[in-house]
């Protein structure tokens, strides 16, 4: 296992001294997890493995853009892997602008003042709050993240009115907001 702090140390070691041993440890920890995550969307093991590898190579390239005071290493990896999944699964046969160039722009150093802090204890707290969501709310959230489905597609699949799915999402987000803001004040 790798703690959030250890993972952040490893990414910084890549940024400051191109540390290959640090990269290997990150790879060993995250590549299988990202692969498992991507396979939940129905991707075959080879494709999922490739997305995981592309994501880890991106971690190497962009290590200097990681800011441990703003986001956890897992969150940062999630956004990179998500973009690689979009590039890989949707854009197999068409030339396009890399999703990384615009969907989650790696925040420039002088422009991230508005970024909220979701690292350290706040990240741990968010995980606890996630555990407190209702099964109905969690189902919708997991379908979105794992299966790459819009709320409209989720409503169709679950045969629920669109309004029901929207209100589950809004209630889930309200609970996260409430819990995190109570801690901040």
């Amino acid at each position, binding site marked *: 296992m790798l703690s959030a702090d250890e993972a952040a140390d490893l990414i910084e070691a890549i940024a400051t001294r*191109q540390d290959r041993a640090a*990269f*290997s440890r990150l*790879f*060993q920890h995250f*590549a*299988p*997890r990202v692969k498992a*995550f991507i396979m939940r969307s129905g991707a075959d093991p080879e494709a999922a493995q490739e997305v995981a590898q592309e994501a*880890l*190579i991106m971690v*190497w*390239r*962009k*290590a*200097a853009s990681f800011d441990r005071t*703003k*986001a*956890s*290493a*897992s*969150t*940062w*990896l*999630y*956004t990179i*892997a*998500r973009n690689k999944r*979009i590039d890989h699964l*949707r*854009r197999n046969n*068409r*030339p*396009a602008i890399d999703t990384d*160039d*615009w969907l989650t*722009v*790696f925040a*420039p*150093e002088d*422009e991230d003042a*508005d*970024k*909220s802090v*979701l690292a350290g204890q706040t*990240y741990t707290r*968010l995980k606890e709050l996630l555990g407190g969501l209702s099964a109905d709310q969690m189902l919708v*959230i*997991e379908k*979105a*993240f*794992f299966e*790459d489905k*819009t*709320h409209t597609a989720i409503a169709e699949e679950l045969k629920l009115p669109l309004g029901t799915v*929207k209100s589950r*999402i809004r209630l889930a*987000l309200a609970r*996260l*907001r409430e819990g995190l803001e109570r801690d901040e004040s």
Partner: protein
Amino acid sequence: MSRHPAPDELLLDYAAGALPDGPALAVALHVALDPGSQRTVDRLNAVGGALIDREPVPDFGGENDAAALERVLARLDDVPVEPHPRAADRRHSTFDWAPAPLVPHLRPGMDWRRVMGKFDEIRLDLPGDFHRVSLLRLEAGRGLPEHRHAGYEYTVVLQGGYTDETGNYGVGDFAVGTGDQRHEPIADPGEPCIALIVVENPIVLTGPWGRWLNPLVSRGWI
């Protein structure tokens, strides 16, 4: 924080990576301009991180795993660790109102084109996406022809503002139009209103000229 943020469910679609490119670009621009929605997306991304942390995985260390790591390490020889970018690198030299996520989509030579003598347009080409994605520019006091939508329409204001039957929209504001609405946006006084508009299906004009113009719209000529 803007007065018209994107709805939570659309921010979830965006953070989950489920939106087609056109709507994803609209949400990306809104998020770049709206700290409140940025915070929500940061939280949703952290949910994604938490879901990765929760993945039960088999131990790393088999022969295949070691070989995969070796292959990736060999590839790193050709991959430099890039320096941290600066905000100035993300600005467009001509279109200084463009938020960072729009810049890669503005190719050299793209420029405003006058449409129906009323407004200016730059059509963006997002390969493989069925949405019509355009930047529109309206001088103060000018309006778009009254129209309704056959599908969803997403609008993000990038400069100036406009007012229609549903309210007043300023920089960063996000509007979702649905098929049953008619509206007639008018640009607010001051600098021209510039907005990104993403339309699911071609717009249907409802004014007196609609009968003549709709065939041209549906062919993508205007």
